[in-house]
């Protein structure tokens, strides 16, 4: 185990995978300038700066992935993906299926998002749900440096295009990272804390908010299980359902806006597959239907808070006791 930041853990994964497989290369606006270590180790053919043009960065990755390379591209901040949607969604996501399986697209697109830097809504927009909705793509959004490394390694080895989101609020937070392989398969959630009374389901930064809430809940006699989704697509439905079947209650938490977010998908899944086990309404605590504000206090208020999670969880427990079955 070594202590390193989330950002450095991603960098280490890149380093290891580029050393392992000469087809892996990385490019983006400032990649060669900012990732000096990679540049030094792997040279300017495999670590490249690009012109400022997200569309062609993503398109070049897709074209290269389909013909033998395994590109990782840094698209910087999630809202800039708006300039690369055609290449990611219409090309990388669809052309395998549309060609009857003639091509595959082993590529990773990296982007930061989330509150913490007061950069405003054109740098901070949690739009991971878009890529969950679009076919042919996988989506990863880790909450710890160890997962960041393990999932980045798995993403690079995957034969499909993977969107890899880094939560700004976590990027420079240190954590334990195991040495060596420690690859984490895509599609496996982690149970961060076991509990029996309510399941808190989240990903990225708000996993930590959930863990803090669970601590408080424990003090108040409520046993909360905390699930970190880690991969948003494929979603680890089994882990979610098993937990809710045990606790009978779910609170879903994320910073992304509410409507048609990942929380909606998780709630819909539970309400269809674990309905009989549900003892209370499914609650979502999410960012509002608003652009992310720059102003620090507003930005902080945008993301769900531990106090709100505690209140919601306790409310569910109370309502269960009071409510009478209607049939």
């Amino acid at each position: 185990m070594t202590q390193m930041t989330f950002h450095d853990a991603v960098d280490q994964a890149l380093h290891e995978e580029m050393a392992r497989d000469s087809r892996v290369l990385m490019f983006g606006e400032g990649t060669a300038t900012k990732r000096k270590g990679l540049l030094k180790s792997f040279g300017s053919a495999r670590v490249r700066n690009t012109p400022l043009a997200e569309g062609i960065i993503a398109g070049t990755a897709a074209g290269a992935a389909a013909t033998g390379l395994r590109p990782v591209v840094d698209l910087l901040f999630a809202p800039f993906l708006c300039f690369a949607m055609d290449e990611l969604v219409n090309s990388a996501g669809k052309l395998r299926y549309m060609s009857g399986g003639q091509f595959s697209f082993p590529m990773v697109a990296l982007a930061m998002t989330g509150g913490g830097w007061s950069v405003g809504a054109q740098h901070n927009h949690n739009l991971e749900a878009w890529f969950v909705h679009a076919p042919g793509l996988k989506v990863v959004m880790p909450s710890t440096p160890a997962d960041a490394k393990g999932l980045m390694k798995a993403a690079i080895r995957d034969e499909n295009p993977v969107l890899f989101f880094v939560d700004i609020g976590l990027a420079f937070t240190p954590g334990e990272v195991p040495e060596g392989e420690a690859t984490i398969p895509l599609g496996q959630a982690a149970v961060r804390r076991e509990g029996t009374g309510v399941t808190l389901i989240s990903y990225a930064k708000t996993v930590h908010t959930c863990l803090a809430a669970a601590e408080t809940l424990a003090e108040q006699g409520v046993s909360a299980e905390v699930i970190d989704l880690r991969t948003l697509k494929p979603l680890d439905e089994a882990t979610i359902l098993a937990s809710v079947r045990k606790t009978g209650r779910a609170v879903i938490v994320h910073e992304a806006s509410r409507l048609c977010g990942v929380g909606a998908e998780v709630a819909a899944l539970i309400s269809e597959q674990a309905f009989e086990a549900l003892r209370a309404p499914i609650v979502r605590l999410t960012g509002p239907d608003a652009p992310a504000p720059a102003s620090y206090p507003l930005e902080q208020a945008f993301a769900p808070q531990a106090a709100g999670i505690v209140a919601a969880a306790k409310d569910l427990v109370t309502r269960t006791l009071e409510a009478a079955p209607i049939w």
Partner: protein
Amino acid sequence: MTPSGTVSTRLDLLAAMLRIRAYEEKIVAFHAAGPFPNVCTSVGQEAAAVGVVSALRAEDQILTNHRSAGHLLARGADPGRMLAEVMGRSTGYCQGRSGTLHISVKELGVVLTSTIVGGELSLAPGVALSRAMLGGEGIVVCFFGDGAACEGIFHESLNLASVWNLPVLYVCENNQWQAFVHRKETMVGDHVAPWAAPYGIDSLTVDGNDVESVRKAALHAAAQVRETRRPFLLEAWTYRQRGHMEPHDQSYVDPAELEAWMAKDPIARLEARLLADGECTTAELETLHAEARRAIEEAAGFASASPYPDPSDLATGVYA
């Protein structure tokens, strides 16, 4: 079949163009006969397709778009499997999942066909990057329209290909139309070739309705790309003889423009030249036409007899 690289005589060029024309005319006939998927035909643009593709080598790769039949057939694609794809049959090159608009044939090096206008431009540099980094002599040919040149991705694609020294031969088929809009409404100049200059990319405009000129220009351009490992932009000045897609509609087209271009039909021009030069007789031409039609009839028979994919297969193969 007309395997790429073996076309070189004027008669070969003619035969290749006739095959494309017969294919597109069969599509038109299918439409006349009843409901059939909408198709963008390349009637009138056969010389651009055959002239360029005949100048390529087996190891080269091609990206194309919605108006791809000429490029595919010139490269040696089986018209039966193409028609089957258009008709959504399981024997199609893409198992019927593509339909007419995005037929890729990887085994012939026709990769990542996209109907997003500009899609081919966005993908070509990456294909060329693979060539550059994984070795091999091949170059990448990217066919696109004058309309696609108006998309922002044109700018990004050419700029990246230039600063990264990628071996892409960009081929713009300037057929004067961008779906229902004339290019005069969308660009101030007539030509796309000059748009290459800002990126330090050499370019050339060629009479796209003269297959021999196109072939010569393409051989020159391809040789330059091969040698310099840098992009080049070749513009083929041509015309879309039919409506944007079948079923056919040209109500918005200036009849005088259409008439002037019909007089420059690429097939008629080559035939006239062959006859004038005494390289063949009218009867021999008739035989070539008949042979092209026969091959396409056979292909149509194959496609029509092919089964549809099984609906239970609907969502398979999305992920690798």
